[in-house]
């Protein structure tokens, strides 16, 4: 009896309770499943209709398995077009794009539905305003849309996912399309110079070191033909140490002929973009630093460069007498 009371009855009661509760769950699940499925389907259709205006209902299309980055493809039942989802490897993980095509294969909308890109950089491509720039593009001219500066890797992944999306469209619709290749733009590199190399690059005719310090600038080099000069200037960048060091070259009128980085240990991919020719060369032809805007996302480094060049511009007034006008 003790065995029954202490052991058997609790087990039986608990088992019965579990069975009854499971039964109730099954009933509720069966009753609510069609409603939940319908709601989910309507939600998914509404989400797809965002990239394919005018669409109402969709049916899934079976896909060949050899398309890279394929996720799914849907055909609008009234023949308005297709909505496909494709993924590609971005900077922080896979990005997933939902792309709408009209019946002729022209993009009607792009939406990034999944990403883990860096906020402020790669994540900018997830904004709807970027997706809108692709509306009206076809397989042949989608590569013409510019990426976003500072988000090279994400921009490339975006185009790669679009290229897969075009393949999906082509497979789903049976219209074969010529998809233009995503060309890898060579990544611009940060090239550091020694002071001598920078001088040689800026003033090919050779330079002589000026024997005095000018306005606290220790290194000033005058061209041998006295047509130009260079100055080595510093400023504190994003990090306290080391300082940013630049060689600024100026001609006899005070116009900047070039800026070359000597020390430039700014954050890779962010601040160090300021040290690359595409940014520094904007100073060529300027007599002040006012005309060059800071690079988005790299304000501190940009301002440091500006400050360093300002020193050279100020110091120029003191040494310009050494140059032949």
């Amino acid at each position: 009896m003790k065995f029954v009371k202490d052991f058997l009855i609790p087990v039986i009661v608990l088992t019965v309770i579990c069975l009854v509760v499971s039964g109730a769950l099954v009933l509720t699940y069966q009753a609510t499943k069609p409603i939940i499925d319908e709601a989910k389907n309507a939600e998914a259709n509404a989400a797809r209709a965002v990239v394919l205006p005018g669409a109402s209902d969709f049916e899934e299309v079976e896909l060949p398995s050899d398309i890279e980055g394929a996720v799914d493809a849907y055909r609008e039942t009234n023949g308005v077009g297709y909505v496909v989802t494709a993924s590609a490897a971005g900077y922080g993980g896979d990005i997933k794009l939902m792309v709408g095509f009209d019946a002729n294969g022209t993009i009607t909308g792009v939406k990034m539905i999944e990403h883990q890109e860096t906020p402020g950089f790669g994540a900018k491509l997830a904004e709807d305003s970027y997706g809108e720039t692709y509306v009206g593009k076809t397989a042949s001219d989608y590569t013409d849309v510019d990426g976003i500066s500072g988000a090279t890797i994400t921009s490339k992944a975006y185009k790669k996912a679009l290229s897969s999306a075009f393949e999906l469209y082509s497979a789903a619709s049976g219209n074969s399309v010529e998809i233009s290749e995503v060309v890898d733009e060579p990544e611009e590199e940060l090239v550091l110079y020694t002071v001598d190399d920078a001088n040689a690059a800026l003033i090919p005719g050779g330079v002589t070191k000026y024997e005095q310090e000018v306005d606290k600038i220790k290194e000033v080099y005058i061209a041998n033909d006295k047509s130009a000069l260079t100055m080595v200037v510093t400023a504190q960048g994003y990090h306290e140490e080391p300082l940013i060091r630049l060689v600024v070259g100026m001609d006899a009128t005070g116009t900047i002929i070039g800026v070359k980085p000597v020390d430039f240990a700014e954050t890779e991919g962010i601040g160090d973009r300021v040290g690359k020719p595409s940014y520094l060369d904007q100073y060529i032809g300027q007599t002040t630093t006012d005309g060059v805007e800071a690079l988005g996302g790299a304000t501190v480094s940009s301002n440091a460069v500006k400050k360093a060049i300002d020193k050279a511009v100020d110091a120029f007034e003191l040494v310009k007498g050494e140059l032949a006008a």
Partner: protein
Amino acid sequence: MSKQSNLKILLNGIIKENPVLVLILGTCPTLAVTSLAVNGLGMGLAATAVLLGSNIVISLLRKVIPDKVRIPSYIVIIAGFVTIVSFLLEAYVPSLYEALGLYLPLIVVNCIILGRAEMFANKNGVVASACDAIGMGLGFTLALICMGSIRELLGSGTWFGMRIIPESIQTMSIMTLAPGGFFVFGCLIALVNAILMRKGKKPKQTVGCSGCPMSGKCTQAAEGGCK
């Protein structure tokens, strides 16, 4: 306890033994979902439905369930009700289902529900248990709506989605975040304590062992607490 009138049991839960503000139970969902008043209302009603169901069933089965397996039995029953409620919400109020998110399944471990099962439903009849569930549920819901209203009004300038504070006035977005939840929670507890004290009913000074759902069974309780 069974001598109390059912109405008194019902009213008990709203102020005197308000589960959130006096018993300090169910703090996690209280802080988490009350960034909007409507979420507080939804969470409160969902928990009330679960509480009502579980209290009735547990009270019905209180003579059948052996002491040894009562906690697992309660958990199975509560989990069953929570799952049923979440299916129903997903089917009929999907927006609320989305908003409550993770906190909906977590009703299973909401102390209020297991606490009322232990403290009340397994010692009282069906009607009294149902009244207790409604009272506690309403107390929980009202506390959540209060917190949600204050946080939504100060944090987003709206109340149940209606704009009350003009958009030109900067809202305190901290109120919609976790710290704001703690601020409002503390202020409300203080307010309820003040009301109870003015009425001459001293609020419980400590939760202590007597407030613990296990106190009846716990051998340490008589010796002055857990060691």
